[in-house]
């Protein structure tokens, strides 16, 4: 194989940026990282914190800005408008052509916008790009009092938090019976719904939007059931789809995302696809072919980089994990926890702290744990992963569960607490007394 001279990466998200740095660790080739969104790679996940004034854009840069020069990675702020696989070039929006020896596509996702009436009205926004923040900020200038967020996933709740902070009344319109019920088991979904209700958020279940009302500005939404809900702002967070339309005519195999083999290579030997825009041809058991989350994107960046440098590394989906935060309620999941648990799987669900926290163990009939889902508690990644990988029996996991505790020091350990509660012990009485005298010491849900 001739030495690689030119590597071009389209997309500077976590996948693309990781790939660039991982390639640089191994070889000396020229690396160009292209994005039309920001000058420096930043953490998209921090968009809500930028909006809320907790951090500013430079705080969210993935690496200090001098790293890129130091590692001799060429950052290019431009948009790619064409790909010529035969000539191995890409075309930029200013007409310039860049040639590549190896190309990495890390174009990420686009928000799904339903094709309905009123979707282009002012006051209708999605949340994915930095530019969306600008747009939302601009919309909020026009005295927004209430908002409906259509679709209740993880981005939806972030948008809700952003709006609540600005004093806007928020309702969620969800297709399912409760919040994010297509991903969370019922109890957890109910718990999140209760938590959202405490924040003054209304959940409108079993409804689907059919149109957005309004002439000059969004004034409400119309549902398929015929019901209407009035509001001044409509947030669309029904999901994301791979951003691949640019490549639809190039002969790359595309299903929903760009299809890749286990080395993350596409049907063109010189092109890799990673992150949200990539679709695995052969996903592992119980795993999706597109997993559009931060952690998988990062891992894919590492694997594609190794393969480009000739290492032949297979992308293993490994033990699934994800985490999020619903206002103050933290969520962590390890392994396989489907929303409906059916034989041969069973689940053991424990709540504590007056139903404000919970842990769920999903296990196989034969006894070994396949998934753990924690709400309001932090678990140790390595420990949970090892349990699931090694098919550890449930009773063993439960017995040693304190080993998985990752909460800040002095946080009561859940299972001791659970016992104390069931016995109505003196410790509990003492604690109640203390929290009666010093209400501020009461654990926040």
């Amino acid at each position, binding site marked *: 194989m001739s030495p690689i001279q030119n590597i071009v990466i389209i997309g500077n998200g976590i996948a693309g940026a990781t790939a660039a740095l991982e390639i640089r660790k191994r070889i000396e080739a020229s690396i160009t990282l292209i994005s039309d969104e920001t000058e420096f790679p930043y953490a998209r996940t*921090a968009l809500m914190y930028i909006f*809320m*004034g907790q*951090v500013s854009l430079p705080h969210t840069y993935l690496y*200090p800005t001098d790293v890129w020069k130091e590692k001799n990675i060429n950052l290019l702020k431009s948009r790619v408008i064409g790909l010529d696989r035969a000539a191995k070039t890409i075309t930029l929006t200013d007409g310039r052509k860049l040639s590549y020896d190896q190309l990495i596509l890390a174009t990420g996702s686009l928000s799904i916008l339903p094709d309905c009436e009123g979707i282009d009205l002012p006051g209708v926004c999605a949340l994915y790009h*930095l530019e969306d923040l600008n747009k939302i900020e601009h919309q909020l200038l026009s005295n927004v009092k209430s908002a409906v967020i259509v679709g209740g996933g993880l981005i939806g709740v972030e948008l809700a938090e952003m709006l609540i902070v600005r004093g806007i009344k928020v309702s969620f319109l969800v297709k399912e019976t409760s919040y994010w019920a297509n991903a969370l088991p019922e109890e957890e979904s109910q718990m999140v719904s209760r938590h959202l209700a405490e924040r003054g958020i209304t959940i409108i279940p079993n409804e689907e939007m059919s149109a957005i009302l309004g002439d000059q500005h969004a004034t409400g939404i119309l549902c398929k059931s015929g019901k209407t809900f009035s509001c001044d702002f409509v947030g669309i967070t029904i999901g994301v789809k791979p951003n691949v339309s640019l490549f639809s005519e190039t002969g790359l195999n595309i299903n929903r995302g760009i299809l890749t083999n286990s080395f993350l290579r596409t049907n063109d030997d010189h092109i890799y696809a990673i992150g949200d825009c990539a679709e695995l041809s052969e996903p592992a058991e119980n795993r999706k072919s597109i997993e559009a989350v931060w*952690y998988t994107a990062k891992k894919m960046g590492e694997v594609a980089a190794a393969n480009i440098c000739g290492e032949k590394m297979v992308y293993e989906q490994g033990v699934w994990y994800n985490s999020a935060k619903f206002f103050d309620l933290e969520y962590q999941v390890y392994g396989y926890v489907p929303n409906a648990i059916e034989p041969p799987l069973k689940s053991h669900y424990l709540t504590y702290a007056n139903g404000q926290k919970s842990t769920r163990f999903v296990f196989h009939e034969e006894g070994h744990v396949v998934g753990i889902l924690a709400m309001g508690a932090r678990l140790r*990644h390595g420990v949970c992963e090892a349990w699931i990988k090694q098919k550890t029996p449930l009773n063993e996991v439960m017995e040693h569960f304190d080993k998985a505790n990752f909460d*800040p020091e*002095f946080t009561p350990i859940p299972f001791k607490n659970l016992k104390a509660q069931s016995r109505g012990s003196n410790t509990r009485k003492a604690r109640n007394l203390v929290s009666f005298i010093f209400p501020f010491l009461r654990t926040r849900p």
Partner: protein
Amino acid sequence: MNHRSIALTDQVHPTSHTRLHFIWLALFYLGLAMQFFSLFDLIFLPGEWALGLSFILIISGILGYTLTIEHRKKITGQPLYTLQGNIRQKKWSAWLLALFLTTFYVLLYLRPDLLGLGKNGASNSGLIGLYDGLSYWIKGNPASEWFVYGTMYTLAITCLGIRVIFKFRHNRYQVYRTLSIIFFQLIFAFLLPEILQSFNKPYVDLKNFWPLNYYFFFDWNIDQLLASGQFGFFVLGWGTLGFLVLTPLFTYYFGKRWYCSWVCGCGGLAETAGDEFRHLSNKSKKAWKQEKYLIYSILVLVIVMTLLILISRMTGQLTNISQTLAHWYGLIIGAMFSGIIGVGFYPLLGGRVWCRFGCPMAAYLGLLQKMKSRFRISTNGGQCISCGNCSTYCEMGIDVKSYAQQGKDIVRASCVGCGICSAVCPRGVLKLENINQ
């Protein structure tokens, strides 16, 4: 696209202040104004009444204002920390506050007579005179400038500590830690030394170990302690035990935080009064380099100075040089660095400037922490989403994110273990812990 319009820092949340907040603020400023006017003897009330009223106004003002703000933040879902607001962005109000604080420190160290300290046996007037009543009540003597300073310092840590406890009531680490800070400041740093004085014992802060307490081995201190009999021997023994045995031992088990974030008054003030200025610490690699040069130079300096003083005590040699060194160390490091820059510049450089760049005790603890300690901040696998909250609010200027992204544990000499990185992490990636190896 214009990024500047994105809520970076320009906009203040519409829900931040209500009329009630202004009333609380007014009480606070009224109390402060009483202290200010007492400088010119313009308070026409009996001393005890004036001080009592002023304290009531200040305490109720601070607590009323900060607790209602924190409560409101909670019910409106505001984040724990924000970059927004004039005072957090080094704008005019920050400069004004810095000017006010530094002026106070300059007067305190260099011209206490302007604060009303009676010279040559004359009785106190002005601000210091205002505190005479309290001083007589606690120890039966008139107030000194240090009594005034100690009272204000304790008041700040206590009131703003209560605010921190209220703000972090969902996080027991922060609650216990702040209670500990308040306890050590109130009892060990403030009341105990004053009460000891009233029993004709020397003024000692038992938690203030050498080398932070740089004058521990100075002639006058040793003479004073030796002159006070058994108690003096106890203090000498305790102080030596403290830096030789207790410090390494506790640092081995708990890391430097046992002192810097649980006991020390300098750190305590930064954690309570400096809480809103955490983001101002410089996170650059250059600052890290400066930090290492400065803090270890000061540690070396304090060791050399102490050795010279002990040599001169025992042999009578080198007296001049050791005394000159002691004088300048006291003035430049002890007064100007720790006070004027360390506290006066809170709104410009962040709260832990002294702890990070100057404190010889922090340097000593840091070396122990780096080399031989169970303490670290663990990173939870690959779960960091690089949002940058941890690095932004690290008051010691550690780029926590750069470690978390790589799944590396954080073992840094400068980490004081305040736990804020872990508290602001939205994914539960960071945990302070003492690992039993």
